[in-house]
């Protein structure tokens, strides 16, 4: 089936309720195109989403999907993949979902290195709750709940990922459709946890981190002689306070996925026995 799959096969018949101009449209289109181009189809794809504007993505895509609880999409995705490594698992979330309530899971998902991709729609604000500061909001970003700005430094997701032992770290921009799609594709193809932070502007509540801002300031690593396999170079880039980058910042070419390391290669949904599995009586004998 995969040869005939088009990205529109991943579209559901639900019309997105995102605000006109929202960055999430582009982010989702890139995800669907990347899935189709990597030979997947809706029946072998599992999309996990969290809560918030980003969390709606599972509704607008057509695939096996679950819309999880706030911040916990990553462990759900890992559970799906471990139980059936044949599935292509993609987790989508927002900056609040991933770096605030789900920050603990983020660190451990990175460490665990399950072969799935994680796309974070980073708009640096809470949109669905109508404009409060998010963990990636700038220190002086004024919102209804932080009238003087959060007055604390934003989370640096790329540095957090690198420090936690990430094997694939990338950043993209939803408006640069081709680059975004290409980067997500690389994350899918990576053998391990493919992390992509996507700048996905909120046109309603964030008047600082706008399309224009990213268009003017992002440095595309594809235009430089940057070597993403060089971890030292990656350290410098992710900690660079003056610039923001687009592209693959780090990829460990030696990465072995959790499933490989733990020898998980079977679909656990199969139970080929109607009673206890063969050899189960040995479990009882152990207690003599």
């Amino acid at each position, binding site marked *: 089936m995969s040869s005939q799959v088009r990205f529109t096969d991943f579209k559901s018949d639900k019309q997105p309720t995102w605000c006109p101009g929202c960055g999430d449209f582009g982010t989702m289109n890139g995800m669907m195109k990347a899935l189709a181009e990597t030979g997947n189809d809706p029946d072998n794809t599992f999309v996990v989403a969290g809560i918030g504007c980003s969390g709606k993505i599972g509704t607008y895509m057509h695939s096996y*999907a679950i819309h*999880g609880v706030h911040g916990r999409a990553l462990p759900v995705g*890992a559970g799906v993949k471990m*139980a059936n490594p044949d599935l292509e698992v993609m987790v989508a979330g927002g900056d609040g979902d991933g770096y605030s309530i789900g920050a603990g899971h983020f660190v451990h998902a990175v460490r665990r290195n399950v072969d799935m991709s994680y796309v974070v729609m980073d708009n640096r604000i809470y949109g669905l709750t109508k404009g409060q500061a998010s963990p990636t909001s700038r220190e002086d970003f004024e919102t209804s709940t932080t009238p003087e700005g959060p007055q604390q430094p934003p989370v640096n997701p790329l540095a957090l990922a690198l420090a936690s032992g990430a094997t694939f770290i990338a950043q993209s921009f939803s408006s640069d459709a081709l680059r975004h799609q290409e980067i997500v594709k690389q994350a899918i193809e990576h053998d391990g946890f493919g992390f992509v932070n996507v700048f996905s502007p909120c046109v309603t509540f964030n008047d600082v981190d706008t399309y224009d801002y990213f268009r003017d300031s992002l440095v595309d690593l594809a235009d430089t002689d940057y070597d993403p396999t060089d971890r030292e170079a990656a350290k410098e880039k992710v900690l660079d306070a003056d610039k923001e980058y687009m592209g693959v910042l780090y990829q460990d070419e030696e990465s072995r996925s959790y499933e490989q390391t733990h020898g998980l290669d079977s679909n656990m949904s199969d139970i080929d*026995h109607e009673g206890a599995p063969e*050899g*189960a*009586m040995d479990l009882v004998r152990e207690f003599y």
Partner: protein
Amino acid sequence: MPADFNWAIGGEAGDGIDSTGKIFAQALSRAGRHVFTSKDFASRIRGGYTAYKVRTSTEKVRSVVDRLDVLVALTPRTIEENLDELHEGSVIIYDGERTTMADVEIPDGMIGLDVPLKSLAEDAGGAIMRNVVALGAACEATNFDIEHLDSSLKKRFGDKGQALVDNNKQAARLGQEYVQEEYSDIEFDYDLETTDNDYVLLNGDEAIGMGAIAAGCKYYAGYPITPATDVMTYLKGRIENFGGHVVQAEDELAAINLALGAARAGARSMTATSGPGIDLMTETFGLVATSETPLVIVDVMRSGPSTGMPTKQEQGDLNMMLYGGHGEIPRFVVAPTTVDECFWKTVEAFNLAEKYQTPVYLAADLAMAVTEQTFEPDAFDMDAVEIDRGKVVDEDTIGEHQTESGGFKPHELTEDGVSPRAFPGTEGGAHMSTGLEHDEQGRRTEDTEMRVKQVDKRNRKVETAREREDFSPREFGDPESDNLVVTWGSNEGTLVEALEFLEEEDIDVRILSVPYLFPRPDLTEEFEAADEVVVVECNATGQFADVVEHDTLQRVKRVNKYNGVQFKADELADDIKETLAPDEGQEVEA
């Protein structure tokens, strides 16, 4: 009462109390004797009083009693802690050469066996074997054939080489011979006779793990917490042989979400925790229920609230399991009553979860989880295990559950409330699951009619289960008695033994032990037929008593224990007696 015998070893945590106790318990089991063990432990790794108690008989033993016949005391506190249970003729084995034991006084009427445990152990090859020397001495004091101890030592140390096994055997012999020689004038009353029976000895946590594997569970995610950790320890290293996997998650939130993911992928999936972990899992529990995902969640209850007493018994989470979570959530709450029922109820939990596509709480408790009991091996008859995966559709049958435009209906409105289920990878089955209210296809909706239909559909599963499943209570005692005693969980065994104490006082009771807490049996008829109803449980407020009062519209009397220790048979008999016929002047109008 069966002619039973009670033995204990006590000392400081880190003294090897647990493993020594287990070696003795296993020796008894291998000698064809029934065994029931209990642990008294503190929430610390080293230091603090800890004890391992073994009750044994040639007949079935189901509980602990307030009596100790032989005590291995590694510290003076061991004697103090158990003074109430020791009696005239009790034997206390201790090492007078140990500094802390030098001035120990053996209470009047008891027999002190001062055995140089450490030096004899050194003679056998190492001081570390001093507890085994004590076991040898205990064999002599109980006329128990030491060869059964050898067999237990071989099982314990066999992997580490024959030399170590031989040294331990020698250590036991030295203990035995020392008592023979130095205390030849004492004639010990006890006689632990052996039988030809073959028993297995295991605890509730192990039985839950074994039940999970037997039921085809392939995925377990958990976070270590007392007293549920043994479930994970058991599964790790065993489930892999059956194509499964164990994940130690970063926290309980991750654990249930990992398990949920695996369950959505179609695996039989489980997590286990204790009270505080259940709190953390509760949000996702709602998603599990709303997305109609089959999942088994084990709560091995301990004393709460908050961190409470992590190493002590309580049955205080019933309300949490029955009502926990915002909104209204259909669920099953199944409570095993004995160690072997931990196995069978786990198997059943997986079938219920998949047949009805709901989360299932398995309500175990500390007293059962850490208690080892002997069983005939066929108590775990793997041939009797049946797997029912419910309404799973495949490529061939999925067409019956699609919309005209080909959309799969994972939440199809059916008469029995159960919808078809397509594992990911099934062609034509791609669908969304969500905790948002949804339509038949799983798509978000706020349509008022669909909301009502989906809520009703989910709740209908409970009615369907009531029609299709047997939720009868287990019954013991005198079926004709006017005194009805109702309980749940690990109290069953204690209550059954309490019967014998009550009989001695000419009090007859009928016992109903309820393993299904939701949906649960309707006890109205039983309650109406009885003159008195007493509900026995290990919590302060009588959570189950409240529930059955509500069900039956009848007031019940309550026997509650919540000091952290499980009921003891003799004590429980007294409590029931007093509750059935309170002293004059104390009766209070309900």
